[in-house]
């Protein structure tokens, strides 16, 4: 299998699917929801969790990681019909 697959989950809950980004590109595709594991990859980055007024250094980043494993396992169990 070498065909790339594209995730094209439709998300119309807030955008109505009708908006387009202001890039001047008429073929603009609506932004797609990001899977939780990919989102956490990006939103938690390299363990940097907090900015703004609150600085919490999580010495327990490892702990969070471990718990993420459990989180994602449980999310997956709910999402994957088996």
């Amino acid at each position, binding site marked *: *299998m*070498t*065909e*790339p*697959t*594209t*995730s094209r989950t439709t*998300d119309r*809950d*807030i*955008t109505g699917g009708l*908006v*387009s*980004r*202001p*890039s*001047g*590109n008429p*073929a*603009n*595709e*609506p*932004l*797609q*929801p*990001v*899977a*939780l*594991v*990919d*989102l*956490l*990859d*990006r*939103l*938690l*980055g390299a363990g*940097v*969790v*907090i*900015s*703004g*007024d*609150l600085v*919490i250094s*999580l010495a327990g980043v490892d*702990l*969070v990681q471990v*718990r*993420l*494993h*459990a*989180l*994602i*396992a*449980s*999310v*997956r169990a709910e999402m*994957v019909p088996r």
Partner: protein
Amino acid sequence: MSTGLYAYALTRDADEAEVVGVNGISDAPLHLVDQDGLSAVVSEVSLDEFGEEGLRRNLEDLGWLESVALAHDRVTRHVAEHAPTAPLRLATVFLGEDSLRAQLRQWHDQAERALDRISGRSEWSVKAYVDPAADDPAPTEGEPPKGAGAGRAYLERRREATQRREARAQSWASTADELHEALASGCVAGRRLAPQDRRLTGHTGEMVLNGTYLVDDAGVESFRTSVEAAAAKHPKVRVELAGPWPPYSFASLDEPGTT
């Protein structure tokens, strides 16, 4: 109950009307805080929940983390559909509007650069997997020798198996390097994230590349073509393309101006 402001993203040229009617975390309404041409997209959150103590506790609550992350993504996508948007880290919380404004003034130049960098562009994810079973090199042929030579032959086979595994890992790594270089050269910027654990994602095979790419909205078709070409060049590899996403990996404020 004291409240703080949860900031989802920074944007410019956004109109408050675009976020009216959209709810953030705990269904709180969104609004914009504007400062020197920059806007933060915020909603009110309880500091019991999002203060230092609350966060410490809640970041370990998996259901909580999930719902906040998904709300963060929902809001960010909504704003990014309307204006250039630099997503902030999860749980960027301010104790009040004054301190948020002070931070916006401080972030101003970096934020402008980040918004310039991602304007009219989106993030695309390309993951590549190999199937270790299909890529298993043929085991040594022949009957295992008996008698005096057996022990030595056994060790010999073990050593060869280790060498084959190492060679295979090496070949996967260079395939991933090649894929990433080919894709990154066809877009604005590319970055490799750590491959994800199969236990988290449920994918089959071995993830050898977890790449993410900043692509011009006008260049999406050619990026797709280069993904297909790269996949065709490596028939043993399964390639997965996902997007467009808000530019989560390319809007850091602490990044140098060049990518």
